[in-house]
């Protein structure tokens, strides 16, 4: 009964979100689109980093890979074929990065991811200048803002579904053990590198496809725009602000930061960078479990009965003892 209710509510919510393009102004739609984009990126990031606790700084690399793949192929292939190619390339790059770095230690993975988007940018700039003699590409396709939004919404539903399934699967359990204690995970017979690489690929593919879907939104793309390091940064900060213990945690980080970026990013881009950095450090120092942690702490306080004065507690206990055994009505 409860499950059915939850499903109905979820279906209504998704339907309402899907109707957004016909209900709000162009500006509102742009806002929602940004929100969806970062929501998928952040939940995908949390799928990998929240469970394994490996900080991934490579979001921009995968996002850029998706976006620039579409930019390069859009003149020769239909758009869905472009998405498919992006998906394939994202899988390939995630497999390579994962297989090379995740076998050894978290440190190598962080370093590799940290420079990956810079590397991709450098390689593409070199390629475009020397081989194709272009700098930047136009992405003109009949794929308007509404279409982009609906696709992102689909991806959001999918990424939440994957996250939900993961919590109930053997892989999710294995990842939880790895995040807690890698040595113990190995002792328990978990194939640690395989589990880590698998979830890294899943998470990265989502990021790549988001990049691909977002490509038409830019209209004109250069490697510098596609591989913007701010994306990696923003996603980590959103995930940490929200907290990753719950699947819905990232939501609490994405919404406030998107609101903030709407106000600041275009008009004062450098102030935005400084401010984000400060917010980020505040989270690391004072909110290690994110807003979710705060909310749960508050809920926990509500659920626990307040401490009763001395004497009253004993009285309550004795009353309760006398009531035991008496019928309390239907359950």
């Amino acid at each position, binding site marked *: 009964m409860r499950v059915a209710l939850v499903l109905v509510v979820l279906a209504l919510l998704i339907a309402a979100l899907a109707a957004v393009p016909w209900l709000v102004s162009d500006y509102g739609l742009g806002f929602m689109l940004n929100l969806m984009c970062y929501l998928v990126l952040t939940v995908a990031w949390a799928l990998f980093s929240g469970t394994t606790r490996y900080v991934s700084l490579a979001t921009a690399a995968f996002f850029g890979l998706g976006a620039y793949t579409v930019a390069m192929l859009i003149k020769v292939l239909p758009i869905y074929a472009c998405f498919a190619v992006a998906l394939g390339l994202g899988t390939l790059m995630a497999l390579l990065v994962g297989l090379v770095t995740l076998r050894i230690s978290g440190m190598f993975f962080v370093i590799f991811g940290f*420079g990956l988007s810079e590397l991709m940018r450098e390689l593409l*700039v070199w390629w475009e200048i020397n081989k194709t003699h272009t700098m930047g590409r136009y992405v003109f396709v009949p794929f308007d803002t509404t279409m982009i939004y609906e696709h992102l919404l689909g991806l959001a539903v999918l990424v939440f579904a994957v996250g939900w399934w993961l919590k109930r699967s053997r892989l999710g359990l294995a990842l939880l053990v790895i995040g807690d204690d890698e040595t113990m995970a190995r002792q328990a017979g978990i194939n640690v590198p395989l589990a880590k690489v698998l979830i890294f690929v899943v998470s990265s593919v989502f990021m790549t496809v988001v990049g691909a879907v977002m490509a038409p939104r830019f209209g004109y793309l250069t490697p510098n725009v596609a591989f913007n390091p701010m994306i990696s940064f923003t996603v980590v900060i959103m995930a940490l602000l929200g907290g990753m213990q719950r699947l819905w945690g990232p939501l609490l980080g994405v919404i406030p930061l998107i609101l903030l970026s709407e106000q600041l990013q275009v008009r004062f881009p450098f102030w935005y*960078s400084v401010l984000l950095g400060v917010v980020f450090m505040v989270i690391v120092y004072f909110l290690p479990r994110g807003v979710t942690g705060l909310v749960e702490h508050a809920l926990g306080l509500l659920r626990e009965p307040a401490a009763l004065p001395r004497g009253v507690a004993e009285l309550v206990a004795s009353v309760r003892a006398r009531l035991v055994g008496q019928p309390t009505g239907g359950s």
Partner: protein
Amino acid sequence: MSLIEVVLGGVITGGLYALIAVGFNLQYGVARIFNLAYGEFLMAAAFAAFWMFTLAHIDPILGMLASVPVTFAANWLVYRVLMLPLVQRARTRDDLEGDTILATFGLLFVLKGAAQLAFSPDNRFYDYLNVPVHVLGFTFAANRVLAFGVACVAGLAIWLFLTRTRYGAAMRALAIEPTGARLVGVDATAMSALAFAAGGALVAVAGTLVSTFLTFNPAVGVEFTMKALVVVMMGGIGNMVGSLLAGVLLGVAESLCSYLIDSGLTLAVAYFLFLIVLLVRPRGLFGTP
């Protein structure tokens, strides 16, 4: 340009990378702080040299008398104020690594954004000793040769400090055996702060030297952090001599790449070397496999 000249040019750049990597190694190997904002201090020192030269015609090498102590003090403060709380709350070394990566990642964007605000994101360059000199029958730009000379002096100074002084011995002990070092009475907090600050001072020297012959802007920090990371991983964490050799190796490899393929691919070279190290010798070129 002959191949020998290319290799020698690479050695000159490599000397600078070695210096940058030794500084990072002091911060990571001794103080255990994984500082992703490391390159931002290089960028800050480069801007300091640029403004002193353009506004007051102060020679960049002399200007280091001001900028290096300031960076030393700033890094000491970063350790005492920002990093120490993380060190104290971390239960394991992995915890500390995770926390410092995140905190310094935030610091990176604060410093980069502040530099963009203050100096605009434009590329900067100034003309300093941009004349050819002849060394051993080869021709180089004078500013590069000077940079190499200063890097050698700074490297020698830090090597003497590490091997000939009590403080240096304490730092090496902390790098190799943190618990043992504490047991024999090394003040880990003070030594870590000192090592962190010394690392910052080295990167300030490097930043000043870089500014004399390369174009730079507020966003260059990441690239140098990345190269420092790669060199440290190649040379081995905590191994200063390893960092020196690996730095020179990276410089030569980059130089060969720009001679044979293209000069726009220097980061790709660093990545390529990094990949080889990862696949073949994950504990560094000179570490026990």
